[in-house]
Each structure stands twice: as C-alpha cells, then as structure tokens.
C-alpha cells in the first residue's frame, strides 16, 4: 500500500539518519569553559574576521568561543527572549542604536573600569553609553561619505561636490540615459533614516524636534533630488547594499554609502572611484554624520569576568587594527586609525568625520526606534508626493510623540 510504504520509508530514513554515529542530528553540544557570542556578521568579510579574532583571543585567554550567528533582524528579538529565559549569551555584538534598549533592560554589565578604553574617540564611547554609564565598546566604527565615479566626473569636467547646491547641480548634470546622478537609500527602515540624518543635522535640526524649520529645509532639499529625477524612485526600496550594487553596475554617478563598502568596491577592477566627505549646506561646514557600526556588550552572568577578558583582547590595538582593516571600519582609537589610513587612503574621509560623528541614541535613548520609524515614513511620504515636507514632518513629530 503506497501510503504506508511511504510512511515506512520516511520512518526508516529518519531512524537511519538519527542513528548514524557521530552525526549528532538531535542536539548541538558545547564543552565546558565555552563562551558564546551572539552576532549578525553572517557574510564576508566580517564573518571570517570575527571568527579569526575570536579564535585568537580565545587561545590567548584560555576559552573556547562559539558564535551564534543570525540574520540582523533576529538579533534583538533573540536577546529579549534570552533575557526572559535566562539564557543570554556571554558576549553580544549588536548595532549601536540597539544598545540603549538592551542596556535599559538591566541585563548588561557596566564596562567602566573593566575594559581599557583609554584614548578612544569620545564619539565612540558616547555611542556605547546609556544614562551616563558605558555598556558597549566598538573596536571600529563607520560613517557615511560620498562615493563618486572618477571616469564620469572626468568626462563631464566637474569636481566632486562639497555643498548641497553643488550636489544637486552635479546629480542633475550627470543623470543621463539609464544612469542616475545619485544613489542613496530611502527605504522605510532605520537604514533610510540613518542616510537622511546627515541632511537633517547638516541643516541644524534635531531628532527631538522633527517639525522645526531646519528639518523642513533638510527634507525639502533631500526631496528636490527626487523631484529633479536625479535619484531613482527605486531608492525607496534600496538597502545600502543595493545602493552599492547600483553604483558598481554603473547606474549611478555618485552614491551615499558607508566605509564598509570599500572592500567590495576595491574588488571591482573596472571601477575607478573616489570618496569625499558628504556635502554640507554651506562651504566649510563640518559634515554631521551619524556614528555607525556594531558594539560589543557583556550580559551579566556567571562567565562575565571571562567575557570581559576576551573583550579586552578584542579591543587591543593589534586586533583592533586587524578588525578594522578587514571590515574597512574606522578604528576606535585615533592612533590605530592613523596607522590604517596609511594603508587604506580611501578611509581618510571617514576617519576625518569620526571625532564629530553623532551617536543616534544620545538624546533619545530607548525612544530612538519610534523616531527613526517616523522619519523613514516621512521620507517616503514626501518622495512619493503624498505629502509636502512640512506636512510629513508635522505628522512624523506627532507619531514620534505618540509612540514614546
């Protein structure tokens, strides 16, 4: 009888698979003296860099390190569940805006005086702090800059823009056929918000006051790039990795993106690109970029001392250098950063903006996610022409206030 035969086959298959010696299909065992690390570095080069550095530091401090790697969107939900069940990992590597919410649970160990952060950029330490206490330390950070296609600029005979007006003019001038002047991410998540923040802060607006005249100025300028046709409407659905693909594919003459793209861009032999700081409203202003990157935190627990020891090793100058080199991050210590710029000159604009980079959660703490959501929705409402900038920001301010 076919039904029973297939049942029997399935049963037999399951039984055979389960009993193959050493196959370990039921559970994953970990030995004693093991530290677990939760992170979302699923892809290269971060994946290998992290594994290698953890292995080296594990040997140095005498522990085995096991990584629990998951997709980015799953990390915070997992940590919250772990917190509820009392099964937190020993170390966490999370996106720095998420640190405030993790720290607010009380699950994290304060790191002041426990790890050596002597001489680190103040901006890096600010991004790791919650209510005046240090909970997270990043070995490397990143920020945004303007990438441009040298060949296209040479052909058009123009210089990379330094002001908003120049950016708008260049983007319009270089839009031609299937190539847009500029690519950026306007997706309805934190990625879109983070790419807009340099405009917002550049105009002098604050995250706490979304409907200020300065904020309207910023959004009006940003939207003009879309209404000019210099940015594809598809940007509403682009993550920053998509933005980089557009640029590499020759569909954009410029892009706003982060230092982490440098490694991938260098691998493209036909591409000759340059990197300059993000344009500012007026010549000579300092670019106001948000501080990006992942930060290490140590949940309280039985093995917290060993975890701190391991973290100290990860933050040591040599490992910091190696980490930043592989990921094209800005090292958290100015001396190490300077050393790395010698090897990777394209990193210079990012290093230059690191001391003044702003941590997104400094003013808002755990209120940031709601504000971020309100901003990215406002961006989309304006880019699709549903609302004008002032209306969209007024609504965003209302939504942000409602949510907090």
């Amino acid at each position, binding site marked *: 009888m076919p039904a029973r035969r297939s049942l029997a086959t399935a049963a037999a298959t399951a039984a055979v698979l389960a009993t193959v010696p050493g196959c370990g299909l039921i559970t994953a065992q970990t030995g004693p003296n093991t530290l677990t690390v939760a992170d979302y570095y699923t892809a290269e080069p971060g994946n290998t860099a992290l594994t290698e550095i953890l292995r080296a530091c594990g040997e140095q401090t005498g522990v085995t390190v096991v990584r629990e790697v998951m997709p980015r969107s799953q990390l915070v939900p997992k940590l919250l569940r772990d917190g509820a069940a009392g099964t937190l990992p020993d170390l966490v590597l999370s996106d720095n805006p998420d640190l405030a919410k993790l720290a607010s649970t*009380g699950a994290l160990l304060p790191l002041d005086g426990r790890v050596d952060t002597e001489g680190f950029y103040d901006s890096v330490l600010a991004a790791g702090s919650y209510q005046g206490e240090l909970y997270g330390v990043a070995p490397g950070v990143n920020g945004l800059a303007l990438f441009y296609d040298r060949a296209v600029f040479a052909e058009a005979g123009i210089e990379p823009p330094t002001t908003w007006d120049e950016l708008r003019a260049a983007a319009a001038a270089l839009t031609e056929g299937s190539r847009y002047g500029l690519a950026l991410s306007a997706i309805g998540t934190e990625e879109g918000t983070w790419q807009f923040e340099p405009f917002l802060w550049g105009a002098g607006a604050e995250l706490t006051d979304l409907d200020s005249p300065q904020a309207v100025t910023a959004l009006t300028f940003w939207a003009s790039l879309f209404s000019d046709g210099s940015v594809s409407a598809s940007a509403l659905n682009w993550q920053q990795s998509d933005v980089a693909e557009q640029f590499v594919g020759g569909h954009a003459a410029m892009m706003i993106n982060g230092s982490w793209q440098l490694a991938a861009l260098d691998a493209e032999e036909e591409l000759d690109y340059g990197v300059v700081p993000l344009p500012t409203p007026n010549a000579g202003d300092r670019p106001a970029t948000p501080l990006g990157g992942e930060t290490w935190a140590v949940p309280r627990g039985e093995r917290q001392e060993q975890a701190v020891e391991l973290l100290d090793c990860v933050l040591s100058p040599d490992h910091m250098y190696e980490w930043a080199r592989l990921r094209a991050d800005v090292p958290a210590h100015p001396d190490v950063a300077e050393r790395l710029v010698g090897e990777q000159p394209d990193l210079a604009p990012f290093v230059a903006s690191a001391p003044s980079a702003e941590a997104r959660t400094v003013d808002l703490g755990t209120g940031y*996610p709601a504000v971020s959501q309100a901003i990215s929705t406002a961006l989309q409402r304006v880019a699709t022409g549903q609302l004008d900038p002032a209306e969209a920001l007024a609504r965003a301010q209302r939504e942000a206030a409602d949510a907090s």
Partner: protein
Amino acid sequence: MTMTPRLARLSFYVPAVLYLAVFFGYPLVANVVMSFQDYTVTSFYDGGAPFTGLDNYAEVFGDELFSTTLWNTLVFTVASLAFQFAIGLGLALFFRRHFPLAGVLRALLLLPWLLPLLVSGTVFRWLLDQDYGVLNHVLLNLRLIDDPVPWLVSPDHAMAAVVIANVWIGIPFNMVILYGGLTSIPPGLYEAAALDGAGAWQRFRHITWPLLRPVTSVVLMLGLVYTVKAFDVVMVLTQAGPADATQLLSTWSYQLSFTQLHFGQGAAVGNVLIVIAMLFALVYLRAVRREQAGR
C-alpha cells in the same frame, strides 16, 4: 492490546487535543495577556509588566494607521484569494485531462513552495524593478505600457506588486488541493452527462462545481487563514512601504513589537487579526453545518 471501545475512541483525539493545548493554547493565552499589559523591553528581563486594561487597544484603534492597515489587509486578502483560487482551479481542471508528462509537470508546479520566502521575494524584487525588471521590459516590448511601471515604489502600485507575488506563492496550494478534490469525483458522472449531450460548461456547472464544494470551502478557508497573516512576502518586497502603502495588520504588529518595542500594542494588533479570522471561521462552520444538515 485490547481496548474498550470508549478508550479506543478517546485515543484518537485526546493526544491531539493535548498537543493543541500546549502548542497553541499556551501562546494564544500569553498573547492575550500581553495585550493587556504595558510590556516593555525591561519586562523581558525582570518579568514585571503592569496591567493597563484596554490602554493598548485604545492606542491601536486611535492610531491613524489602524484604518489604513485594516483596509490594506482586506484588499490584499480578497485580491490574493480570488486570483489564487481562480488560477489554481483553472490549472487543476487543465491537469485533470490526460496527456503525456501531466503528472511530472503538475508536480513541478509545486516548486515555488519549496523556496524560502527570502529567495522568492528577492527574485520578485528583481522581476518587478522599475528600471531593470523583466516584467516592465516585457510589457514595454509588447507595447502594453509606455513608461516603466514603478511596481514597488509607488503607493498606487505596491499593493498590486505584493498581491502578484503572493498569488504566485499561493497557486500551488490551491491547485493541489482542488486537484485532489477533482480526482474524487467519479468519472462515470461525466461520461453519463456527455451521453446526455451536456457541454463542457454545463458539466462544470452541474457536476464539478457542486461536488467540489466541500473542498472549495476548505481551500478558501485555509487560504484566508494564510493570507490574512502573510508577513514575510511583504517584508521582503516592500518592507510594508512605500509610506505604509502595503502595511498590513501582520506587518504592523511586528513593527510595533520589534521595531518600536511596544509589545503590548503589537499583541493587541495580533489579536485583532485573530478576531477577524474567527469571524470568517464562524461563517465557514455555519456553511459546513448547513451542508451536513442538508444531507
């Protein structure tokens, strides 16, 4: 090995009932309780979450997004179900005919089910892209459109785009179950009708459709259940955008919980979803009962 008849009867459904209580009852109760609490990130760690009565529901119903998401969910569900069912039924009827390779080709149509939604969603993002997507390319070449359609990035088209993708994912399910229903209709009935001179439409109208009724209602009911809570396909394709144009109750619930960390409100929206489905399930059951009574 002998059981009393009563014990034997119990042993058919008691294990399943216990299973339902553990694997569904527990999460359901937890979700309902959470919707009456001010549940924050801190609650996860220290377990404390004050009860706040109906506050979460008041917040959710008072939100400007509530009516938008409700309407979007309705449009998405009705459109997805209608197209999935119609196309699925058409294919089931087509593959009912005997021709070489029918079985293998029919089996291959199930393949879309095997793909993780990350993969099929990403492929649809490429196919539907405004500038380099295959769909626009083909439509332009066929002169069906003059300008590329901004499928995923215009509030007017994004819903159509997610429905297209979701219909594609749902066709195999509809086809297989309806096909299973068709095979249980005795071929003798058709032969008799053919002898009586009934045309193809008449045979469908008077034999296939009435005899397929029980299966049809199961397919539509299950389809509804899966469509109302569809989540991944929207998140991959449009991230519920642009500007909330494809924000559904399911995606909104997720965003409230895991982006904005208002777990109580997220749970409340989830419960709204469950209540809506309950209403439809009641309609279905009434139909089933009437049918049984009619026998």
